[in-house]
């Protein structure tokens, strides 16, 4: 028995030595949210380690499992020193774990406080990527349509209201054989790999206009003033697509992407992050354009694309002082060094809210360029209000109702109920 206890003691001692050794210099453990950029982060981390000797571990959570992974990782001895939240609602869960970043170069470089999450005076989350979504369209097919006899428009710039857009979409759908397409829109898949495009991103539109009309930025009780508009755009999506509305329950994100890159559909609601996927599948910059999502609200001629962020860096408050310092140093290096800026802007294709990227480190992404054109043209960007949605359960409820409505197993009233009553119930339930 003595031998065994001696062995155990020795092992325990060895383990403590190991953990002490790494604590002296500090190390970084980044729990990355974006699987699309996992490899680039790992490469960047390796480069940083090579330059400075500070170990940086990058772990990427599988798509859709970030909260679960974070929840189990953060209680470990070697917890992530750097993680991310998606906005105010995510912060509510993790507020006890977020260190104050106001005295860092990171915060100094942020262009405006719109891109940070605050808790009182403390800056606890800093956005690192600004993204934009809208209706991505295939410029070749659009040109082909415009060239048709009796086309509803002569130039794509004429599409600046829901009515014009609807006329174009329905005309395309009616003349799909002439255009050589299967449908005007890609499938509005309600599989979990795709449903967030509608229950979260599209649902942002009626919320945005309601907040704007009421002059608020968050609410415990949504009124659903613009839900008729939500219905109009949803009807347009599902009735003019590559598949029958009854089949969208089985369609995935990849199905929609395939519809689009194969030229079987003209319109594809998604965002700047889909650029890489489109290019990898053989599309070119010249083929990609993006239109705002018009839902038929008064004055929407001046509406632009939907721009915002749901990716905020947070530094783990409970990490050791050395690790916290190492993590902040790593982030500062990422946004100020040439290597870091090159990786983030050019390899990952991120548009960042940091001033340090202004001198020549602008992402080469046709969809970001399209977004910039709208801003330059004086259009008002639609802000991202979906981080104020009360809970995941609310989104799921709306998603289910949208699906039932589309496949004919439910009516639109159920969507309204899920949207309005569901919001109140979820806001009351959330703690």
């Amino acid at each position, binding site marked *: 028995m003595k031998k065994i206890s001696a062995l155990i003691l020795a092992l325990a001692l060895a383990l403590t030595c190991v953990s002490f050794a790494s604590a002296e210099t500090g190390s970084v453990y980044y729990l990355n949210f974006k699987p699309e950029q996992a490899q680039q982060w790992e490469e960047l981390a390796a480069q940083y380690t090579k330059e400075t000797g500070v170990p940086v571990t990058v772990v990427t959570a599988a798509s859709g499992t970030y*909260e*679960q992974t974070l*929840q*189990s990782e*953060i*209680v470990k001895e070697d917890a992530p020193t750097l993680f991310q939240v998606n906005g105010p*609602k995510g912060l*509510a*869960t*993790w507020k*006890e*774990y977020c260190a104050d970043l106001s005295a860092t170069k990171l915060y100094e470089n942020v262009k405006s406080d719109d891109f940070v999450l605050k808790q009182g005076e403390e800056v606890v989350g800093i956005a690192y990527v600004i993204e934009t979504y809208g209706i991505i369209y295939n410029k070749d097919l659009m040109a082909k349509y415009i060239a048709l006899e009796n086309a509803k428009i002569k130039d794509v710039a004429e599409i600046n209201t829901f009515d014009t857009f609807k006329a174009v979409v329905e005309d395309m759908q009616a003349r799909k054989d002439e255009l050589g397409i299967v449908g005007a829109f890609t499938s509005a898949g*309600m*599989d*979990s790999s795709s*449903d967030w495009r509608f229950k979260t991103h599209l649902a942002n539109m009626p919320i945005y206009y309601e907040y704007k009309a009421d002059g608020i930025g968050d609410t415990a009780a949504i009124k659903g003033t613009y839900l008729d508009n939500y219905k109009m755009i949803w009807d347009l999506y599902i009735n003019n697509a590559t598949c*029958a509305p*009854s*089949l*969208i*329950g*089985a369609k995935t994100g990849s199905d929609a992407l395939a519809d689009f890159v194969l030229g079987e559909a003209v319109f594809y609601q998604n965002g700047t992050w889909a650029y890489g996927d489109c290019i990898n599948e053989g599309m070119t910059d010249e083929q990609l354009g993006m239109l705002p999502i018009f839902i038929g609200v008064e004055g929407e001629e001046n509406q632009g694309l939907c721009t915002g962020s749901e990716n905020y860096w947070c530094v783990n408050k409970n990490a050791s002082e050395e690790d916290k310092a190492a993590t902040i140093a790593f982030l500062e290096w990422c946004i100020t060094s040439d290597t870091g800026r090159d990786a983030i802007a050019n390899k990952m294709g991120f548009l960042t809210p940091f001033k340090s990227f202004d001198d020549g480190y602008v992402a080469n992404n046709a969809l970001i360029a399209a977004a910039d054109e709208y801003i330059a043209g004086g259009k008002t960007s639609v802000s991202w209000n979906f981080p104020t949605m*009360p*809970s*995941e*359960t609310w989104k*799921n*409820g709306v*998603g*289910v109702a949208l*699906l039932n409505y589309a*496949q004919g*197993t439910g009516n639109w009233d159920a969507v309204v109920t899920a949207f309005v009553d*569901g919001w109140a*119930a*979820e806001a*009351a*339930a*959330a*703690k």
Partner: protein
Amino acid sequence: MEKAIKKWWPLFVLPTMAAFAIGFLVPFVWGLYLSFCNFTTINDAVFTGLENYVMAFTDPSSVFTHALWYTALFSALSTVIINLLSLTVAILLVRGIRGTNIFRTVFFMPNLIGGIVLGWLWQVLINGVLEKYGVTIVTNEWYGFWSLILVMTWQQLGYMMIIYISGLQSIPEELSEAASIDGANAWQTLRHVKLPMLMPSITICTFLTITNGFKLFDQNLALVGQNSPNSQLMALDIYNTFYGRTGWAGAGQAKAVVFCIIVVAIALIQQKLTHSREVQQ
């Protein structure tokens, strides 16, 4: 020798006990404690008494009661179907027909595939067929229900078959021989000789299928996902409660405890029922 075992048994039991404690006892007790706490991670729990249980039963969006009977129905039906089929296959495959081993292997193979992968594969297959009729697996809860039955039967049939085969093979030859000398036909031999002798296997297999039915999660998630709340079994409902809202992890935990008590009770009743019919050789 005996003395040595008496003296040293704790040492021999230690590895198993350690594994059991780490892998089961500690998480179980910890989980029980967490169901009375408000927490984000398992380390920052604050004791809140019965609040979580109140929340669990007043969940505004929950399909918990639906999930309860839906799961019970699924579990009962899949238990009957899986056991009948696997017993039939086992009886056929102990007759020494040509290719017995190949058949046994083929039937067993689906067990080797992970639940999520299997769920995705079947989702694609089933949706592919249903597309012809203009519906999908999430059109209503019964498409999901029968798909789950189909997939679970396909997956578990082989496993139960192996248990039944070994049970059948352990029945002494003399018994069947004596029965046939007494003039019993094949059906009578099965009914009055083999089945009573198989009761231990039946106990194990029904126990496994019932509990598997109740705690099924991954196939459910992969097959119907989140967009068909009425095809969700209890485990998936618990998962949704846990992750669906800020501050509701404890309520999910409370549901899990209630669920655990239900499953244990049912399993105990089932054990008592089938165990009492086992015969000694």
